[in-house]
Every structure is written in structure tokens, then in C-alpha cells.
């Protein structure tokens, strides 16, 4: 069951790579939150119930409700156009995403470790690098934030892989998640929307050496 969920998770990455509209990105992020909710539910069977409840609550409330709702609120509030505006065509995006996943599968096959379920490793690292790729190839600042959320999800998957042995690390991951998201989303997207009229990375190039 966990494997099915994680494979669906990887498929969402492919979908994200070719999606055109920002709302689609937000919906995919919400879907990823729901998938993670079920992964947590099936995977972390050995930790104490209170902690499990807390983690489940975080995935469903924070990842799949609060962040997507807030992002779509930002879209409306700042009148951001709905296109994602990638630098590369969708086909190239798809090829690169595929190669990221394939390379990670190869690495996972080489490593071989009894302590780690291979699929967690593949999903986590693919998500991480896909997030970085997303940040590098989209023009709008808000897509950078979405890319960061994807990275967070990838890290969360990795922390789940060892969650039964070290529940503390899962909690630390959640702390990072909330802390960084609140810092990035809450404070600055509002301000950036006010100051920069069309929110675009090209406007963030005034800090120069000369």
C-alpha cells in the first residue's frame, strides 16, 4: 500500500513538470499532502499514538489545507497571472524529470541498504531534485515557493523512512516545515506582492556589485 502511494507521489511530479497553470501546482501540492497523510498512517505504525496524531494532523491540516489555501489566496490577492511561464518547453521538462527519477533509481540500486526501504530513497531524492529543478526553471517568485514546498515534501518522505526508529527526526522535519513555510510565505509573499507589482524574478536583480 505504501508503495502504491509513493508511486502515485512520483507521478504527481511528472504531472507538475508539464502543468501550465499555477492553480494546478497548488492542487498537486494539496494532493501530495493527502498522499503523505496516508503514507504516515501506514508507515509509522510503531510510534506512540499522540505523536502519530500530531504528525497526521500536520500533514492534513498544514500540507494539504493551509499551504494550498494560502497560496491560492496570494495568487488572487496579488493578481498573479495564471501561467507558470517555464523557461524550457514542457517536453524537455518531462525528459529531465524522467532522468532525475532514473538516476535516483540507479543510485538506490547501487547503495543497497537493509535499513532503508529503497522506494523511500528514490521518491525522496527525486522530489528533492525535482523541486530544485522547478525553482531553477520557472520565472515567477511564487513558483519558487511552490518548488520549496515540493522539496519539503521530499524531505518529509525521507524522514518517514527512518521515522519508526527515530520519531524525533520526523518532528524536527515538521518543525522545519512549519518554520520555513511560515517565514517564507507569511512574511514575505505579502510584502513582495505590495512592493513589486508583477511578481517576477527579473525584478530581483537590483542588488549589484557596481
Amino acid at each position: 500500500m505504501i508503495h502504491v502511494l509513493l508511486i502515485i507521489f512520483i507521478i504527481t511530479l511528472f504531472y507538475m513538470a508539464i502543468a501550465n497553470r499555477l492553480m494546478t501546482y497548488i492542487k498537486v501540492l494539496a494532493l501530495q499532502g493527502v498522499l503523505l497523510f496516508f503514507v504516515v498512517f501506514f508507515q509509522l505504525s510503531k510510534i506512540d499514538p499522540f505523536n502519530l496524531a500530531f504528525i497526521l494532523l500536520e500533514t492534513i491540516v498544514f500540507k494539504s489545507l493551509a499551504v494550498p489555501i494560502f497560496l491560492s489566496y496570494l495568487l488572487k490577492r496579488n493578481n498573479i497571472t495564471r501561467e507558470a511561464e517555464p523557461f524550457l518547453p514542457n517536453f524537455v521538462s518531462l525528459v529531465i524529470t524522467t532522468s532525475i527519477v532514473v538516476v535516483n533509481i540507479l543510485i538506490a540500486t547501487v547503495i543497497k541498504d537493509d535499513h532503508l526501504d529503497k522506494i523511500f530513497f528514490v521518491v525522496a531524492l527525486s522530489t528533492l531534485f525535482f523541486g530544485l529543478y522547478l525553482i531553477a526553471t520557472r520565472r515567477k517568485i511564487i513558483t519558487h515557493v511552490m518548488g520549496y514546498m515540493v522539496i519539503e515534501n521530499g524531505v518529509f518522505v525521507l524522514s518517514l523512512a527512518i521515522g519508526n526508529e527515530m520519531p524525533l527526526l520526523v518532528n524536527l522535519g515538521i518543525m522545519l516545515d512549519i518554520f520555513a513555510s511560515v517565514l517564507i510565505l507569511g512574511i514575505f509573499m505579502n510584502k513582495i506582492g505590495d512592493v513589486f507589482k508583477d511578481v517576477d524574478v527579473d525584478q530581483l536583480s537590483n542588488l549589484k556589485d557596481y
Partner: protein
Amino acid sequence: MVITYLIVSVAIVICLFVLRNRGLVFSLLGLFLVWQGWFTVQACLHFGTTDAVYFTYDSLGILLLVTLSIIAIPAALHSYIYIENHYEPPRSRSIYLGSLVLLIMAISAGYLSNHIAVTWIFTEITTLSASALIYHHRNKLALEGTWKYVFICAISITFIFIGILFLSLSLQHAGSDDLSFSNLLVKSKELNPVWLQMAFLFIFTGFTAKLGLVPMFTAGIDAKDTAPAPAGALMASVLMNLGFVGIFRFYIVIANTPLLHWAKLVVGIAAFLSLFVATVYMLKVKNVKRMFAYSGIEHMGIVMLGVAAGGIGYYAAILHIVLHAFVKSSLFFQYNQLYRVFQNKSITHIGNYFKYNPTGAMVLLLGFISSAAMPPSGLFVSEFLIFKSLFDAKQIFVLIAVLLLLTMIIWSFGKNIFKVLFVPAEGFDDSKVVRTSPWESLSQFLLLATAVYLGLNPPPIFVQLIKESLTLLPL
């Protein structure tokens, strides 16, 4: 004691955020300095003990904590001057001072923590407080700097967390789940090398955002440029040292495994690339503050080269970061007085500083000599030792390349500084220049003198502290 320190400091921070009264706010800042000093003394008295499970007063932590507490005093003083000169509104004054105190507190706790996750948490808090400081001016440039800093730091903090996850995987092979540095050291022989390599790569990359090394150095440059100079001084000195602590403590663990040579290679490549990048930017930079910041990248590159070379290089690296903290912070403290005269950051619009403020010009001149590591600067000693360690490690070609790069950096740095000091700026109207009190430069002279004293005639206790922090490394 650490817990009391943190609670009282957080209480001061909250009071600073809430209160608006001018006298009250500044007396709270003074109170915090006293508290920081008292804590430092207590930490020295409890040398070698562990406090609240996660904090140890070890030699590296104490050494850097004392450095921080010394630099915190002029930082507070110059913040006071800065705020009074700029007629800050009460709200922005409160936020500035509160964030400054929070930053100093987080750095202190980060130095002393003996657990990689705790170091990580306090590194996160430094990002939070530093971003509030960078956003101080609330204009477009400040927003851009803050956004870049927060975003890159968020990614690098995530990288450190991934590194910690890989480290815990590696540790599971040793049948343990305690991530404290001492336990990692005990189990270092049983750690799984593959996961350990991954962990080192991610943790190293993550901490470079704070240390100011390739690949994540960009965030720090923008931050030091846009933050008010007294806060920039802390970011360019003690905050970089926090990045060093994070990397160095983990490096000690990996140095006791067969992966030592690989780790040296990674650190060495990153250090050399940083020097290269610093040279490229130094050659074209025209913004005084950014020039100081790039000089910091250069110095951190030299420090990490010392770590990569090993041997006497370890000793020199720690000496170098302490001395560099004093020198670089004094340059940043001087910056505001320079700005008050010319109202401009760009070197093309600055010139003949000796005419307007001879004392401050002396600080810039001495700061340049110190930063370029010319004798009698203390940095000369540490840089010389690092070159010697490179020579000992038979890295003669690296050494030659480094020396060439350094020559270019010194040439460019010198050209700009002498332009600022002696060549009159075109079209500068000096009828409205405000006179700066020479006393404002006193703290900079003291810091520079400390760097010279510690470099040329290090007190025995200083040498012993550095040597003790290296005992766990295989020499």
C-alpha cells in the same frame, strides 16, 4: 545555566519587541550585554562541563563565545549611534534591537551545542533574526536582499536536515540513535561510509550559506550589503563562525573515519572555488560594503584550505577565524561613518576620506592592512601557517594558484581602499559634510589591536584553547 540564559534572553527579546520607550529599550540592550558577559564568564568557569544535556562548554565553543561577547559590545554601541543618527521610528527601533539580541543569543547557543540537531535549530533561529535585520530599511532593495537570504537559507537549512537524516541512517549501522557529536565520534569506526559521505555533502553544502563558501555564498553577500552595518558586522564575523563550527564539529567526526581524504578533497575544492569566486568579484566590485563581504568569502576560503591541508593548518584555521572576526567587524563598524560623509556606497562617488575624517580613515587603512594579511597584522601569522600547511601537504600547485589569486585580491582591495582614502571624488560637494567624532572609531582601533596582539603574541591560554579544540583530530 544555558536554559536560564536562553529564557532570560528570550524574555529580553520579547520586551524589546513590545516596548517602545527609548530609554527603556536601550537600557534593556545594556542589560542584555551585561547578561551576555555574565554568561560568558560563567561558561568559562564551568569549562569542560556539559549543561542541559545538549550544551558543552568545550574549548572551541568557549573561544568563539568570548569572541562573540567582545564583538557584541561595539555592535550594540554602533547600533545605538546608528539608530540615534537615523531618527528611527520606535517600532523599527524595537524590531531592530530585538532581532539583534535574538541573533547574538542564537549564535551563542549554536556555538556551545554538542548535538548536531541542536546546532541546526539555532542556525534556523539565526536565519529568522538575521532576516528581520536585513529587512530593516523596508525598501525595495532590502526586500530583495531579505527574500534572497531567506530563500537560500531555507534551502540550505533543508539540506542540513537531509544530511542529518542520512547521518542517522549511517548511525543505525552502528546500532545507535544518539546524534551528539561525542557519540558520533565514539561510533565513528562503525558508521556506514556511503551514508556518511552523503551526510557530509549535504551538511557541508547547507552550512556554507552561513560560512560564506561556494556554493551558497551569494545569500550572505546580499544580506551584509542591505542590513544596517552594525548588524552586517555580526553577520560578516560571528555568524560566519557559526557556519564554521557546524562544519568543523562534523568534520572532526569524519576525520576519524577512513573517509578523511575524501572529505579533505571536498573541503579543499569548495575552498579553492570560493577563493576563485572571491577574486573574480573583488576585481569588479564597486560597492564598499559588498567589497568587505567578498573579502570575507576570501578569508573563509583560506580558512577551509587550512582545514583541508591538515597538520598545522587546523591550528591556523581556528586562529584565522577568530582574528578575521575582529578585523572584519571593525571594517563594518567603520562603514556607517563613511556613509554619513558621502551618502553613497559606490566607490566612484567616494574619495579623499582622509580630509573629512582622519581617524576613521586610519581605521580603514589599518583594517585594509590587517585584512590583506600584511605584517604586523595578526592574520599574517595565520595565513602564513596555512600556506606552510599547504606546503607540508605537498600541494605546491594549489599554493601557487592561491598566492596568485590572493595577489589579485590584495591589488584590487588596495586600489579601491586607496581611492576611498586619497583620491577626491568627482563632483562631490563637501560643504554639507557632517563632522564625525573621532571617539566613534575607538572600538575599531581596539578590535584591530586585539587582532594584532592575538596574532603576534598569543597569550598561553588562547593557544591552549585552540590546541584543545584540535585534540580529537588525527594529526
